[in-house]
């Protein structure tokens, strides 16, 4: 999954939460998914940053 796709999915989850579209039972599962997506996105940003540094050093 690309960074954009992850971000879109994340935003969808947040929007649905705000709109109250999830039942209480679903919330925990969605929150877990959201946290996982956030972690993925941040890791992707960090990796990109490192890659850029490496490439420029070369």
């Amino acid at each position, binding site marked *: 999954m690309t960074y954009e796709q992850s971000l879109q999915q994340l935003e969808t989850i947040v929007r649905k*939460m705000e709109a109250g579209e999830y039942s209480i039972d679903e*919330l925990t599962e969605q929150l877990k998914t959201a946290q996982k997506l956030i972690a993925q996105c941040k890791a992707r940003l960090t990796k990109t940053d490192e890659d850029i540094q490496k490439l420029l050093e070369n």
Partner: protein
Amino acid sequence: MSPKSYTLLQLNSLVRMAVERTLTGEYWVEAELAECRERGGHCYMELVQKEEAHSATSRSRQDGTLVARASAKCWRSQWALLQPYFERIAQQPLRAGLKVKLKVYPQFHEAYGFSWIVTDIDPTFTLGDMARRRQEIIDQLKQEGVFDLQKDLQLPLFCQRIAVISSESAAGYGDFVNQLADNGRDLRFVTRLFPAIMQGEQVEQSVIDALNRIFAEADQWDCVVIIRGGGATSDLSGFDTLALAENVAQFPLPIITGIGHDRDESILDMVSHQRVKTPTAAAALLVSHLGQVLDRVLQAEERVARYALQRMEVERLRLSRLAERIPVLFSLVRTRHEARLDRLAQTMTAVLRQRIDRENTRLQTFGTQLFTMADRRLLQERHRLELLQQRATALDPALLLQRGYSITLVNGRALRRPADAPPGTVVETRLAEGTLHSQVINTPLTPSKQ
């Protein structure tokens, strides 16, 4: 008797005596040399006079009608002085076709006939005549508008294909080819010899023929070089003719002349694109020309390379500046994205907290409502009970009796209609404080309204 006759010797002796007696001095004579040759150190000449033609070009001059002719001799002792003198001043040997001014005395020899004996020569006369003839040719070329045509041509930048007109045997051609080959700069030339006679009477036609052969393949050549070895005193008169000058002047390729002399320019030199003194100098000119072109090419090459290097350096700097900005830019992007992710996380947390709070509130509300509703219900019931109690209390007969009301009973039952107690009926009246008995006297016919 036959008339007196003489031996030839006797008669010739008479002629000799007549000549020696009548022509005693020396004379300056102007004539044209029809022939001139050296033998045994003596110089033998044929002097002629031709009828002057109107057009004074070299061609028509030779066509004049002969009007006088005589032999002339220069003895060895005199010739040894006159020959170098003439050649030094006139820059050429005495030869057929020249006009000369000679100091002579007559000699008639019984065995060899008549001759003028040359004792002096005036080279300036020859020079003057040649100069006049040259000037006539020059004037005519200018009149024809061809004199400067070659000067308007330009040597091609890459002037490498050289058509050479020279004599095969001349050292000059070898010098020229060697000089071109050993140019020290590795410049390449292609040369081809178009052989021609470079001396004497046939020069004109021979060189014109060579030019025609080159013209037939003019697109294969960049320029023409006419060269000739030999010393400064060589016979150059063949190059001073109108026809040759016309051919050279109007030739489509630039012509370089190097015909080996260094005082006066020949007409060929004047009309050619460039003149140099020697074949070697002609080669040097071509080498220098191509060398300059090579220099230009090399300079251009250097400038291109320098420019390219500078440009690459500039671009490299630009790139490295851009590259330096990339991490900064990306860190901005990263910060922005991280902030966005954080906001999303916060939003989620907030939303969840709100949601939980709301649900809690709802639950609490339900709890509160339950109590309230129960209370209210109890109150309502209590109130109802009170009302019922009040109503019940209001109905107690004792209270009515207390307030003065009474109950009339007949046979133990409450009397509601007078009709139920006919006169004479004993009724029991209960009061608050006790019971009294009484007898009904009458009964009204119409029941009173209650």
